[in-house]
């Protein structure tokens, strides 16, 4: 089931938007190339919002430490994070960004749990 999470017009190229209406929160990114992606917002290493990270080459670098996550696969490139984030399916319909949440179990960092 797809959820409408935000408007396309709310997104800034090269930046992420944290969506807290779902748990755990997700991050929606509009890349400089114009593609839209959604992944879990919380870094798998420590509680940090990936939406505040640096987006480049379809990857987002966690703002706290140097791990980058692929926006297409969720895979992490280097420590300190070791586990991938979940990737959610995105559909853009007009100005609406629709997301179908992954059914996998999220890889949340120590101290963070699903509310």
């Amino acid at each position, binding site marked *: 089931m797809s959820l409408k999470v935000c408007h396309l017009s709310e997104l800034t190229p090269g930046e992420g938007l944290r969506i807290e209406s779902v748990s755990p929160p997700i991050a929606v990114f509009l890349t400089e190339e114009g593609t839209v992606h959604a992944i879990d*917002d*919380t870094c798998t290493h420590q*509680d*940090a*919002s990936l939406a*505040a990270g*640096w987006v480049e080459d379809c990857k987002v670098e966690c*703002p*706290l430490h140097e791990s980058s996550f692929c926006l297409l696969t969720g895979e992490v490139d280097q420590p300190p994070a070791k586990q991938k984030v979940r990737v959610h399916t995105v559909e853009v319909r007009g100005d609406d960004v629709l997301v179908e949440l992954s059914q996998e179990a999220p890889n949340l960092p120590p101290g963070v749990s699903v509310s």
Partner: protein
Amino acid sequence: MIIDSLDAPLPGSSLLPTPGGDVYTDPETFRLEQQNIFETMWNCVLRVDSLASAGQWKRVTVGREELIVVRTRKAGIQAYYNVCRHRGMRVCTTDEGKSRTLKCGYHAWTYALEGELVAAPNLTSMPDVDRQEYGLKPVHVREWLGYVWVCLADEPPSFEETVLGEVRTRFGEVQSIDNYGIENLKLGESKTYEVEANWKLIIENFMECYHCATIHPELTEVIPEFADGLASQRKNGEIHGASFGSDIEGFTVDGSSGVAELPAIAPGQERKYYAITVKPQMFINTVPDHVIIHRMFPQSESKTIVVCDWLFLPEVVEQDMDISKSVELFHRVNQQDFEACELTQPSMSSKAYTRGGALVPSEHHIEEFHQWWHETMGYRQQPAATDSPVKASADAVIAEQ
């Protein structure tokens, strides 16, 4: 007392007194200068083009404070105290770098280039933390002449009045400093001098040319009129265009021709040297084909770092034209001046200089600097306790003007 009165030149005499030696050596005086002068006024700190792309930052020290000056993505060049708002660790720990964010290495509090707090461990569970309020503390920033200027005061003095107005007024409308197009020039050479002398000795040296014929043989060859002891800087803040000698082709170490002339200078500026002090820490020197900028960074009461930039037309720098003879002339002047200042500094604490020295008529305008210093330091009134009759005399002269 008879000796005292001989030591203290009377108003109207040839010699005017200088401040006593202690103001050049006293750490408490230096602390007050940092507080009342350098942390209050506009300081010229960096070349704008040294921060060419977003994310590039440099560390600078102004007064007692360390700052980060950074080119942001969205807000041009900004400057912040280099102090993490969390527990205070230095955020930037090297002199320069390029990064996507400014991150403290202690608890990973992470700031956008634009200053606001963007990330920290567990920050999402602290929604009451205001990202702006806990952003890096900014300082005021301006750009002029291709340089970044910063002011640490909460309410800075008007840049238009205290910097732009003063420089433009002193250059005059016809001999306008704007003619040199300094903001469009490129850096041909930069040299850094660590000078073991109080910053005021360097300013006083730069303001007068009574020393020129003695310690600047090359400069006096190029500008023979400097042998009369009169500098480009004169009374009432006026500046005088000092003429090149008749057989001199350019402002170079051997008087040979320089490089391409700056295109918009006035006819009167074509064979002349102008100099100006922009208080508290910048000197501007102009000649027909280049501009020399000094920035001073006082480190202590007896140490000052001086950075000297030689600026030329972009094509001169880009085509790698030979500027070595131009650079060598003022490099020698710098070395000669700073050696004199370094040989003066130790005497400032001598018993023989307790009451200070003297200014000859061609140096009398330095008293305007001393008067400004007294006022800015809040010493307009006679300090309560003094054992220096000459200092008292100097203050009396100032008070009469």
